[in-house]
């Protein structure tokens, strides 16, 4: 059996063996799980490696960055990455392997490659963005429309930070005198608590979302700090789907954080955020001014048109009136003409009828006269032919007895004296004999013939 050795002897053996076997320096990829700067200026860290799927620890090692190295590396790292050297970062470090009898296994950091960390952060951001995109929420907040009037501003910031003060001062000092109502929802803006505290603040705002027009997330202070908290998936998902537009002013000079990328609007500083909001109010005021101006212009134009119309109408009125008068006069004249001609026509027709009547009347009278004359002539003729003198002249005679015409001989007695009238005188005779004749005509002729004169 080997002679026992002390622990110190063993550890010295391990140290010497290690130093002998691994004399080189190695570039090692690892994740920082702890970073602590001690009062003496040395920086103590812990490196880990995780299973990418289960996140379980696979390897772990302590690391030391001695003060003289750390003084050079820390500012260089922050300058390059815009990011503090903190837990959670993936780093590429140049180390030498040590073993100390008392403190055990450790890595001494000789150099840090910030490019690796930047690449890793960028990749991580890209992955988060890709995931949000796959879920269809990446641009949701950007698609929200800013209200016409952005006044009620929910501010997420750390309570005592200069950023919030700058923001409020800038807002209240706006030259136009716009009214704003900023209100602080305090949150941790640095370190590991960033994600949960900002999400809590967002939840508080969402609970009274009708009270707010917009959310502003601002962070003042130095250029370098731990911003990895703004690059987490839960925070990005929360912001992307937040119902109010989010404006970020996280003050990160270098790359945009995921939060910046999903926010509605991204500006660099709290002051810029205030300027942006004042700008919105200015646009709103200009829109109102434009409307007022358009209204005045349109009114003026309308009034000009109306005035011109009125003047035109007024100008036309006398002409229109005289036209109307002329038309009425013409109508009256036409009516008068019709009346006159109508009366004339009636008079003419009357005269015509009177004339015709006169003609007919004259004709009628004349016809009557002619007829009467003719009748008179006939009567005269008849009277003339009935004249006894004419009969006497033709040889007839009239016998009278005591002045009476004798037509029947039986009225005479024998011995009666009768007087016979002929054309040229009278004959006195005595009746000797009377006899009625069988033929009245023959007897009369015999009795009164001029040859039987006495």
């Amino acid at each position, binding site marked *: 059996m080997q002679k026992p050795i002390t622990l110190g002897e063993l550890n010295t053996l391990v140290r010497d063996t290690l130093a002998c076997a691994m004399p080189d320096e190695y570039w090692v990829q690892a994740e920082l799980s702890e970073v602590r700067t001690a009062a003496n200026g040395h920086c103590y860290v812990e490196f880990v490696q995780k299973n990418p799927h289960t996140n379980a620890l696979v390897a772990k090692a302590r690391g030391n960055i001695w003060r003289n190295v750390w003084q050079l590396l820390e500012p260089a790292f922050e300058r390059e990455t815009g990011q503090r050297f903190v837990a959670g970062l993936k780093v590429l470090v140049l180390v030498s392997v040590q073993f100390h009898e008392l403190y055990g296994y450790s890595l001494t950091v000789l150099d840090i490659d910030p490019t690796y960390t930047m690449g890793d952060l960028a990749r991580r951001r890209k992955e988060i963005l890709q995931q949000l995109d796959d879920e269809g929420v990446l641009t949701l907040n950007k698609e929200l429309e800013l*209200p*016409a*009037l952005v*006044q*009620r501003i929910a501010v997420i910031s750390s309570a005592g930070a200069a950023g919030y003060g700058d923001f409020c001062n800038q807002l209240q000092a706006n030259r*136009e*005198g*716009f*009214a704003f*109502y900023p*209100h602080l929802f305090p949150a941790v803006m640095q370190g590991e608590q960033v994600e949960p505290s900002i999400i809590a603040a967002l939840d508080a705002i969402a609970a009274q979302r009708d*009270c707010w027009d917009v959310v502003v997330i601002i962070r003042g202070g130095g250029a370098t700090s731990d911003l990895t908290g703004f690059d987490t998936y839960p925070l990005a998902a929360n912001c992307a789907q937040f119902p109010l537009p989010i404006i970020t002013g996280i003050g990160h000079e270098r790359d945009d954080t995921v939060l910046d990328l999903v926010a509605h609007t991204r500006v660099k500083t709290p002051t810029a955020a205030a300027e942006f909001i004042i700008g919105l*109010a200015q646009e*709103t*005021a200009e*829109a*109102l001014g434009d*409307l*007022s101006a*358009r*209204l005045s212009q*349109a*009114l003026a134009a*309308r009034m000009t*048109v*109306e005035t011109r119309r009125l003047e035109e109408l007024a100008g036309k009125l006398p002409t229109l009136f005289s036209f109307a008068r002329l038309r009425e006069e013409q109508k009256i004249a036409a009516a008068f003409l019709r009346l006159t001609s109508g009366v004339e026509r009636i008079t003419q027709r009357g005269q015509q009828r009177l004339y015709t009547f006169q003609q007919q009347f004259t004709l009628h009278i004349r016809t009557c006269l002619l007829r009467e004359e003719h009748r008179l002539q006939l009567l005269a003729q008849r009277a003339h032919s009935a004249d006894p003198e004419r009969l006497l002249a033709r040889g007839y005679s009239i016998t009278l007895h005591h002045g009476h015409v004798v037509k029947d001989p039986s009225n005479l007695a024998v011995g009666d004296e009768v007087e016979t009238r002929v054309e040229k005188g009278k004959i006195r005779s005595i009746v000797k004999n009377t006899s009625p004749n069988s033929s009245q005509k023959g007897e009369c002729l015999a009795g009164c013939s001029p040859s039987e004169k006495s």
Partner: protein
Amino acid sequence: MTKKEELTYEKAMAQLEEIVQMVENNQLDIDQIGEKLKEAKTLIEYCKDRLYKTDEEVKKILKS
């Protein structure tokens, strides 16, 4: 007209825009213009108040 508590800045602007367009397009007769003008003036006043006057009520509500 719309009751004050229901009126929002956006609604006021939309109404104002509508009135301006109606005047611009000669859709109003002169009698209506007077009334609409009064309405527009009220709306402009409302918008200006909202823009420039700090409403203590709003302040109080938001602080609580």
